């Protein structure tokens, strides 16, 4: 049974995440209209927004504590928000600022917040093995922490994922793999990526429990994830969970989605996990004022984070050469400029 507090917390994460993506979209497009130049504007580079995937983040992360590890793929914001990543510093990172989570070095695909054990990777399925490793560390230390690896349905044929399933299973490690099935691997519809309609069936080959939540209902995700995470904490091994979500904003900003039928985009917009969550809250007897208040405070939190981030200093160019090593070897240099390295010209 989900408590009212948990319901409100999940709803708060979801509306924060949705509004965050809407606001980032606006900020991202600044300086990119009418000419869409990917390197222009306050947020350059690729931007993969997760609007429509909030339920998969909220329903799982509701069971997690700071000591539990989460790895997220290239579309990470909603998961980061639910995991408790510092929103201001995350936003500063996305704006490429010095006070960002990663000092402006990582950007939106590579967010790291070690205070809540959150890590990102932009390479498909490659966050899975490190999640297995976090679980291995917990097990070796006798802690009951768990690890959660997020991936898209397009990643379920990748070796990094399949090898991780096997390793977690054979070692009986406390890992939850969460497939966010948004139906599209960039331009590839799911039916052309795999002959298995239900991605959680991948679990069968590894003798691991597999479950699919067919609709993006955060409460159904909560129930399924609770069972899996409880099993993991009790030393009973990994689980594979697939959640049907929706991609509302293209693969990345700038994706014209010419390959996607209009009806599919429309369907994604109509199946709104946030509206569903609002009606769940209402059914649970939470009054409209409380719901409005959560939404307003969430929106304000996003506005505050963006305002703060945009006010932060850009990194000094020379900072590019720091952080290559934790412990730079004596005499090592990153060879920044001609002449800094051992000169072959001999006239330095």
């Amino acid at each position, binding site marked *: 049974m989900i408590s009212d507090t948990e319901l409100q917390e999940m709803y708060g994460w979801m509306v924060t995440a949705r509004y965050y993506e809407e606001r980032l979209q606006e900020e991202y497009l600044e300086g990119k209209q*009418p000419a*869409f130049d990917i390197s222009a504007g306050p947020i350059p580079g690729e931007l993969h927004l997760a609007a429509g995937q909030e339920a998969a983040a909220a329903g799982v992360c509701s069971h997690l504590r700071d000591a539990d590890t989460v790895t997220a793929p290239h579309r990470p914001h909603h998961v980061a928000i639910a995991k408790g990543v510092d929103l201001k510093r995350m936003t500063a990172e996305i704006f490429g600022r010095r006070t960002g989570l990663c000092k402006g070095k990582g950007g939106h695909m590579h967010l790291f917040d070690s205070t809540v054990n959150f890590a990102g990777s932009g390479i498909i399925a490659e966050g899975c093995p490190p999640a297995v490793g976090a679980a291995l560390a917990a097990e070796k230390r006798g802690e009951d922490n768990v690890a959660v690896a997020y991936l898209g349905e397009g990643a379920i044929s990748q070796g990094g994922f399949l090898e991780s399933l096997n390793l977690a299973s054979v070692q009986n490690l406390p890992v939850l793999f969460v497939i966010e099935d948004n139906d599209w691997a960039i331009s590839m519809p799911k039916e052309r990526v795999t002959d298995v309609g239900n991605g959680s069936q991948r679990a069968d080959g590894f003798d691991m429990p597999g479950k699919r939540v067919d609709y993006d209902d955060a409460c159904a995700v909560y129930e399924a994830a609770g069972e899996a995470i409880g099993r993991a904490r009790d030393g009973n091994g990994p689980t594979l969970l697939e959640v049907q979500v929706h991609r509302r904003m293209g693969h990345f900003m700038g*994706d014209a989605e*010419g390959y996607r039928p209009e009806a599919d985009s429309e369907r994604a917009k109509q199946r709104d996990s946030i509206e569903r969550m609002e009606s769940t809250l209402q059914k649970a007897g939470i009054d409209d004022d409380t719901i409005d208040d959560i939404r307003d405070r969430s929106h304000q939190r996003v506005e505050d984070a963006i305002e703060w981030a945009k006010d932060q200093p850009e990194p000094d160019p020379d900072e590019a050469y720091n952080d290559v090593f934790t412990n730079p070897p004596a005499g090592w240099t990153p060879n920044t400029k001609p002449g800094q390295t051992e000169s072959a010209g001999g006239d330095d």
Partner: protein
Amino acid sequence: MSDETVAVESETIWPADSDDVEEAIVSNWFVREGTTVTEGDPIAEIQIEKVSLDVPAPATGEICELLVDEQGEFERGDTLARISTDQ
């Protein structure tokens, strides 16, 4: 000897599904002033929001004037170039 020029009009190539958009950019010119073209040759690529499309030469002749810079913005209805059809 005639002194005919044909305008390359953005209006004639504007796609129906971009009816709600009023500006675009020339992302690539495939010709310079002085280039000879045959009717139907792609002479430019334009980008309307996220959609790219080619602009075919409306006539055979020589490009005598490019009226929008590469990466330059234009409004729907603007003339993009002129082709001299002098024989």
